[in-house]
């Protein structure tokens, strides 16, 4: 079978596309040609600017090379030029779907370094907002993942809930996406009157409509046909890559910062972590969907716990973290977000490293796409939930 080893490069004069080079393998009886297909940086499937170069053999993916950095805005450098209060306005923009959860890490880091006392009410408010923000994020992915599989409708239904929740959060924070509601020592301002009542109502409505999504997406036969068994991720690979969030939970590992290293008041309530079994695309989506329900459970508990009292503590005129380094890890909607904050005692951080969940999660894509079909590659790409800004910062 020595013929199979021979390779012949052919450049047909009338090849479609200028840069197509067919590589003919074998003895010519049944020649196969490899084609490299570049998806992105502006492609409907990438919801953002993310590029992935696929080596295709027919519709079979032989290899995948993600190319990132199209959304690199230099957050870590900019953070070194902004003081500790201004950083919040940067951090809530890297993962634009979960602005509130992003701010949380900075606030906690600065508070720990300054040894600030945070009032109880502020902590519960932060939890409430963080959970609502988590639901906002997951709803977006329910819509966009279905869109990638060709179903246009779930997006519209997801945004029905999103608008309600955004309106709720806007009533307290003034922002629809970027809340900048946290400040070192608490939150900016107390909740408006009637907020908790409205919050409870929306929680009830969202819970009722949760079944719509199960029917519309998860229970759909074609959806199951497209996702079950697609792109399974083994546990050890996931851990070695540093994958967190729904993608990790889908493999069956219940590693969730809210449970394992409780911050805020997560230790005082029950946090359910939905788990998958095989780590395939279906499980990832299942976990994502059921995290909405888990978050609604948390929100209902927070409503019962919410104490009265002040929501922020007095800050010095100048926030200056003492010398030293701190690493704060919070559970973001897409995985664990880590902030390494190193201070030299000045007004701005010396080093502000963001360990963003999407960056680690996306590393799994080349592994998952090996040998998949082209439509499955899209299915995998969507099921490793990521936000491009969160990858590139």
């Amino acid at each position, binding site marked *: 079978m020595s013929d199979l080893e021979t390779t012949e490069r052919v450049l047909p004069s009338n090849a479609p596309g200028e840069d197509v080079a067919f590589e003919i393998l074998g003895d010519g009886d049944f020649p196969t040609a490899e084609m490299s297909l570049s998806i992105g*940086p*502006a492609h*409907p499937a990438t*919801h*953002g*600017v993310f590029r992935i170069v696929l080596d295709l053999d027919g519709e079979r993916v032989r290899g995948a090379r993600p190319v990132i*950095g*199209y*959304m*690199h*805005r*230099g957050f870590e*450098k*900019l953070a070194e*030029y902004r003081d500790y209060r201004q950083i919040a*306005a*940067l951090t809530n*923009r890297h993962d*634009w*779907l979960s602005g509130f959860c992003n701010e949380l890490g900075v606030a906690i880091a600065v508070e720990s370094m300054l040894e600030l006392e945070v009032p109880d009410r502020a902590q519960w408010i932060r939890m409430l907002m963080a959970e609502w923000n988590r639901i906002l994020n997951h709803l*977006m992915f329910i819509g966009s993942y279905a869109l990638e599989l060709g179903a246009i409708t779930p*997006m*519209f239904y997801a*945004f*029905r809930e*999103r*608008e309600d929740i*955004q309106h709720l959060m806007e009533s307290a924070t003034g922002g*629809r*996406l*970027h809340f900048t509601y946290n400040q070192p020592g608490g939150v900016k301002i107390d909740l408006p009157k009637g907020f908790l009542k409205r919050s409870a109502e929306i929680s009830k409505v969202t819970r009722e409509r949760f079944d719509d999504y199960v029917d519309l997406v998860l229970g759909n036969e074609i959806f199951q046909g497209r996702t079950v068994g697609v792109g399974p991720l083994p546990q050890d690979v996931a851990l070695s890559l540093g994958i967190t969030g729904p993608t990790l939970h889908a493999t069956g590992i219940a590693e969730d910062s809210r449970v394992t290293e409780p911050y805020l008041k997560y230790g005082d309530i029950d946090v359910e972590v939905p788990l998958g079994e095989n780590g395939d695309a279906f499980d990832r989506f299942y976990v994502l969907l059921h995290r909405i329900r888990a978050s609604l459970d948390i929100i209902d508990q927070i409503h019962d716990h919410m104490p009265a009292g002040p929501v922020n503590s007095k800050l010095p005129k100048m926030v200056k973290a003492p010398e030293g380094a701190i690493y704060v890890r919070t559970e973001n909607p897409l995985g664990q977000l880590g902030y390494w904050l190193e201070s030299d005692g000045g007004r701005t951080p010396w080093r502000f490293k963001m360990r963003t969940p999407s960056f680690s999660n996306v590393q799994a894509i080349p592994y998952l796409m090996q040998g998949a079909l082209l439509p499955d590659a899209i299915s995998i790409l969507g099921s490793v939930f990521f936000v*491009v*800004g969160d990858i590139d910062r």
Partner: protein
Amino acid sequence: MGLMDQVELPQPVKYVFNWGRKYSLWCFNFGLACCAIEFIAASTSRHDFIRHGVIPFAHGPRQADLLVVSGTLTDKMAPAVKRLYEEMPEPKYVISFGSCANCGGPYWDSYSVTKGVDQIIPVDVYVPGCPPRPEALLDGIIALQHRIQNESLKDRIAGRRQDPITLGADAPLALEEGA
């Protein structure tokens, strides 16, 4: 095409042609960052710009009439945006959606951010905000539709563009002129 960019069309034909362009803005969303989410919000049920004839089903630039650049444009991305704009067929319109696309926004001092999409492609409407609300995009679209209804295709293709509209600064004026 040939004729339309050579001669000024008679008024009734021009009206019908402008009306067609006005209500059929197939929209290519260049979603770059946070603003893309607000763009999607503007296309969904509550804000729903599809009722204005802005159809977000153009998956590629070839079928698009309107390019909405929503979000931060980085130096790495800039060539792709320019190329996509060039792939769009004339007449084409550009809405710069959000502070980052307008001028660099909160990343004005970054080493990797292009300070505004107008440095590489011409812009018709600027929508300010970080991110702007979906209502602001609707406002921008209506301002653009007014302009399309009154413009001359010949001038447009010859490159004689009108000054861009900046929402908030002179949008009411633009509407007055259009009315």
